[in-house]
C-alpha cells in the first residue's frame, strides 16, 4: 500500500509542471555549482603545489648564509586544497591561504580570498553546499506542504481513509514519494559529483575522500529527512494548505537565513574573541617577559647555566656557539608563548562553535553546515590543524638552524653554512586528518541531525494519526 501511494505521488509530481521547473532549476544550479567547484579545486590545488615546490627550491638555493639569516629568510607553507571542497568551500574563502615560517614568530595566515571579491559574495556563494542546504529544503517544502491539507481540501482524504488506508501508511507513502522525487534529482547530481571527484584528484586523495563523502552524505540525508518530516507534520496539522505553506516558509527562512546570522552574533556576544590588536599585544608582552623574567634575565640565566655546565669562565671559552644556544632558548620561550596564545584563541572559536551547535537544536541548518564543511575538509578546526603542522615545521627548521650554529659556529668569527645544511631540513609534508578525526568532532552535529530527523518523523506520524478529515 505504502508503495502504491508513493507511486501515485511520484507520478503526480512528475506530471506537475511546477515540480519539473523547480527540479530543473535546482538540478542545473547543483550541477553547475559542482562543476565550478571542481574547476576551482583543480586550479587552486595546482597553484598551491607549484608554489610549495618553488618555495622549497628557493630555500635550497639560497646560497651561503649564516643559518640564522636562513631562518629569517624562512619558507612559506601553502594550505593545500582537499577534493571535497568542490562541494563545500566552507570557511576557506575567509581564512588565509599561506603562512610565512620565519625565525622568532608564529605568523598569521595571509590573504583571505574573500578580500579579493566584491560585496556580492556576501549574499552567499553558489556552491553545492548552498544548493543542498538552502534550495533543496525549499523544494521539499513545496513538494510536501499540501500533502495532507491538499487531500483534505480536495475531499480525497475522506475517500482514501474510507478504503481502509491507514493514516500511517498514507504518511509513509507520502514521505517515500517525496524522497523518491528528491532521489530523481539528487542521485544524478551526486553521480556527477563522484565523476568530477574521480577525474579531479589523485588516487590517495580519492581514497581519503570516500569515507568523508559517506559521512557527508549521511548528514545531508538526515537533514533532508528532517525537512520531509517537518513538512508532512505541518501539512497534517495546519488548518489549510495556505497556512501550512506560510508556516513552512517561515521555518525555512528562519532555518536557512535568520538562525545562522543570529547564531553568529549570539556566539560572539557569549564568547567574545579578542581583537587582533589585543591578541598581538598579548603575545608581544608575553615575549618581553611581562615585567618579570625579561629577555635579558633569561639570557643571563642561560649564560650562567652554560658556563657552569661546561665549567668555563667566559662565553668565548664555551665549546658551543653561545649565539645558537641563545636563539634556541628564545625560540623555546616564544613557542610557549605562541602555544598559549593560540590555544586560548582557538578555544574561544571552539566555544563559539559550541554555541552554534547548541542553537542547532532550533535550526538544523547549523548542524548540517558544520558537518558538511567539516567532512569537506574546509572548517576552522582543520585550518587550525594545518596551522599547527606548519608551526611544528617552522620550529623544526629553527632547531636545525640553531643546532648547526651551536655545533659549528665559533664564538668569535663569522660563520656561513650552505646547501648541505639547507638540505637537512626535510620538505614540508602535510597529511590532512582522516575521516575518523573529523567524525570524533562532528559526532554531536550528526547526533543532532539524527534527533531532528527522528523527532520530525515522529511528529509526522503523530499528526498524521490525528489528521482532521473534514474541512471545518
Amino acid at each position, binding site marked *: 500500500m505504502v508503495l502504491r501511494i508513493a507511486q501515485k505521488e511520484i507520478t503526480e509530481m512528475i506530471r506537475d509542471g511546477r515540480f519539473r521547473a523547480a527540479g530543473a532549476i535546482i538540478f542545473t544550479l547543483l550541477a*553547475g*555549482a559542482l562543476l*565550478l567547484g571542481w574547476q576551482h579545486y583543480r586550479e*587552486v590545488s595546482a*597553484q*598551491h603545489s607549484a*608554489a610549495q615546490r618553488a*618555495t622549497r627550491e628557493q630555500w635550497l638555493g*639560497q646560497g651561503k648564509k649564516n643559518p640564522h639569516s636562513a631562518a629569517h629568510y624562512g619558507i*612559506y607553507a601553502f594550505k593545500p586544497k582537499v577534493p571535497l571542497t568542490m562541494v563545500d568551500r566552507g*570557511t576557506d574563502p*575567509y*581564512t588565509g*591561504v*599561506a603562512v610565512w615560517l620565519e625565525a622568532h614568530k608564529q605568523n*598569521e595566515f595571509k*590573504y*583571505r*580570498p*574573500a*578580500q*579579493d*571579491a*566584491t*560585496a*556580492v*559574495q*556576501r*549574499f*552567499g*556563494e*553558489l556552491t553545492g553546499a548552498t544548493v543542498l542546504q538552502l*534550495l533543496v529544503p525549499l523544494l521539499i517544502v513545496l513538494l510536501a506542504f499540501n500533502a495532507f491539507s491538499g487531500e483534505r481540501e480536495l475531499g480525497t482524504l475522506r475517500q482514501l481513509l474510507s478504503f481502509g488506508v491507514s493514516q500511517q501508511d498514507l504518511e509513509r507513502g507520502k514521505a517515500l514519494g517525496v524522497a523518491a522525487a528528491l532521489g530523481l534529482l539528487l542521485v544524478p547530481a551526486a553521480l556527477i559529483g563522484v565523476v568530477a571527484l574521480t577525474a579531479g584528484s589523485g588516487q590517495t586523495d580519492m581514497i581519503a575522500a570516500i569515507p568523508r563523502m559517506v559521512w557527508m552524505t549521511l548528514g545531508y540525508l538526515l537533514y533532508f529527512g528532517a525537512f520531509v518530516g517537518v513538512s508532512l507534520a505541518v501539512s497534517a496539522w495546519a488548518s489549510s*494548505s*495556505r497556512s501550512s*505553506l*506560510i508556516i513552512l*516558509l517561515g521555518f525555512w*527562512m528562519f532555518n536557512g537565513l*535568520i538562525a545562522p*546570522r*543570529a*547564531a*553568529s*552574533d549570539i*556566539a*560572539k556576544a557569549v564568547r567574545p*574573541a*579578542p*581583537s*587582533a590588536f*589585543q*591578541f598581538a*599585544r598579548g603575545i608581544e608582552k608575553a615575549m618581553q617577559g611581562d615585567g618579570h623574567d625579561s629577555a635579558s634575565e633569561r639570557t643571563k640565566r642561560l649564560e650562567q647555566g652554560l658556563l657552569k655546565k661546561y665549567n668555563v669562565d667566559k662565553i668565548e671559552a664555551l665549546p658551543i656557539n653561545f649565539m645558537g644556544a641563545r636563539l634556541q632558548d628564545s625560540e623555546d620561550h616564544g613557542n610557549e608563548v605562541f602555544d598559549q596564545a593560540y590555544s586560548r*584563541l582557538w578555544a574561544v*572559536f571552539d566555544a*563559539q*562553535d559550541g554555541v552554534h551547535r547548541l542553537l542547532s537544536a532550533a535550526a538544523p541548518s547549523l548542524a548540517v553546515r558544520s558537518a558538511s564543511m567539516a567532512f569537506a575538509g574546509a*572548517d*576552522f578546526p582543520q585550518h587550525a590543524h594545518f596551522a599547527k603542522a606548519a608551526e611544528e615545521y617552522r620550529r623544526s627548521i629553527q632547531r636545525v638552524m640553531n643546532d648547526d650554529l651551536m655545533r659549528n659556529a665559533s664564538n668569535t668569527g663569522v660563520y656561513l653554512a650552505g646547501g648541505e645544511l639547507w638540505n637537512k631540513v626535510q620538505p614540508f609534508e602535510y597529511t590532512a586528518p582522516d575521516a575518523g578525526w573529523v567524525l570524533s568532532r562532528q559526532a554531536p552535529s550528526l547526533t543532532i541531525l539524527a534527533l531532528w530527523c527522528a523527532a520530525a518523523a515522529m511528529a509526522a506520524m503523530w499528526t498524521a494519526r490525528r489528521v482532521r478529515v473534514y474541512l471545518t
Partner: protein
Amino acid sequence: MIRTLMRYDWRNLSADRAPLAVAVVLGVAIAYGAFNGSEWIRFQNRAISEALAEEGERFDRIRNEIPKIESGEKTVSPFADPRQPQSFGRNMGTRYAVMPPAPLGALAIGQSDLYPYYFRVSTNSRETFLNNDEVENPVHLLTGRFDLAFVLLYLYPLVILAFSYNLVSSEKESGTLALTLSQPVSLRRLVMAKVLLRAAFVAALAVLLSAAGVIIGGTNLAAEGAWSRLLVWAAVTAMYGAFWFALAIAVNALGRGSATNAMTLAGAWLLFVIVIPSVLNVAIKALYPVPSRVELIQAIRVAGDESTRQGSKLLARYLEDHPELAPPSKGPGGPPDFGTLLVAVNEATERKVQPVLAEFDAQLANQQSMVDRLRYLSPAIVAQSAFNDLAGSSAHRYKHFLAGVDEYHRQWRGFFVPRILRKEKLNASDLARLPAFTFREEPTADVTGRAGVAFVGLLVAVVLAGIPAVMALRRYPVAG
C-alpha cells in the same frame, strides 16, 4: 474616495492580528540588527583607541630615552637606538593610520568585517603592513552578520509580500471585489488605496524603526554628512520597498489565485535575493579571475631575492638617480650599512612587484565595474551597494583609505630615507616633525552620488514592474 477605501481597508487589516505580529517581528529584528551593528562599531573604536594609546606610550618612552642616550646616561645597541632613523622608521617609531567607523557605520557591517581599519605604517614595503586582518571566527565571516542592512535586504521584502500577495486576489476570492467595483470606483483606484495604506504602514515601520535603530546604535548625527546620508538611506529603503509592492501588484494583476500569487512572489524573492546574486558572483569570478595571491607571494619573494643579491649595485644606481640623497662623500668611505642597503633593495623589489600588484587592482576594478553594471539584475544587489556605501562599509571607502595610507607611506619614507642615507641621527625635536596620518572622510557628495545612482536604478525597477502592472490591471478579470 481613496481615503474612504483606505479607512475600510485598515479596518479589515486591523481586525486581523497579522499586522501587529508582523510589526512586532520586524521591530525586534530591526532593534537587534541595530544593536549588533553598534556593538561592532564599539569593538572597532575600542581597538583603535587601544592602538593609539600604545603609540602614545611608546612615544613617551622614546621621548624620555633620547636625552638619556644623548647624555650617555644610557647605552643601547644601534638596533635599539631610537635615534637611528632606520630603527625608528621601521619599527620603534611607526605610527598608526586609522580609518574610524563612518557616521552610519552601525547600520550596515557590509565589508567592514573583512577589511582592516588601521595599519602600522613603516618604511618597509606596504605589503609587510597591509595584512592587518581582524581576528574573527571565519564561520562568522562566512555567514555574515545580523545587521540592519540584513533585515532591510532580506526580511523587509518578505513583510511587504506577506501584506500584498493577495491584494486583489483575496477580494476576488471572497466575492467582495465585484461588490466594491459596482460602486463608482475603478479597480486601479482600489488597488492604489490598498497599496498606499500598506506602503504607509510598512514604510513607516521601516523608517521609524530604522531611526530608532540609529538612536539605539548611538550614531553621531552631528558628524558631517550624517543627515544627508541618512536621508538617502531612507529614500533607498523606501524605493526598495516600492519595488516589492510594484512586483506584488504586477503578480496580482495576472488574475491568479492567492496561493499561486504567494508561490510566484516567494519564487521572485528567492530569485532576486538568493539566486541572482550568487550566480552573478560566480560569473564575475569566472570572467575576471583575480590572479592568485599564492603567485603574488612568490613574485615578491623572487623579486626580493634578486634585489638582495644585487644589493650594493642597486644602492649605487639608486644614488645615481637621487644624488641629493647621497651621504656626504668626504666622510669615511666604507661598505654601505644595513639601513642604506635596505632602502635600495626595497625600492627595487617594489618596482619589480608593481606590475603584479597592478594586475590585482585592475582585475578587482573590472569585477567592481561588472557588479556596477549588472547589479541592476537584482534590486537587492542595488540596495546592498547603496547601504554599504552610505554606511561606509563598502570597498569604495576602503580603497579611499588605502590611497590615503599610500600617500602617508610616501611621506613617512620621505621623512626617513634621506636621514637614513645621510646617516643622520634623530633628535628630540624631530619627533614633533614626524608626519601624522589623518583620515579624510570621502566627500559626502561622492557617497550620496553613488547611492543616488542606485536610487535611480531602483526607481527604474519600480517603473518596469509598475507599468505592466497598471496595464494588466485594466484587463483584470473581476468575475470568474
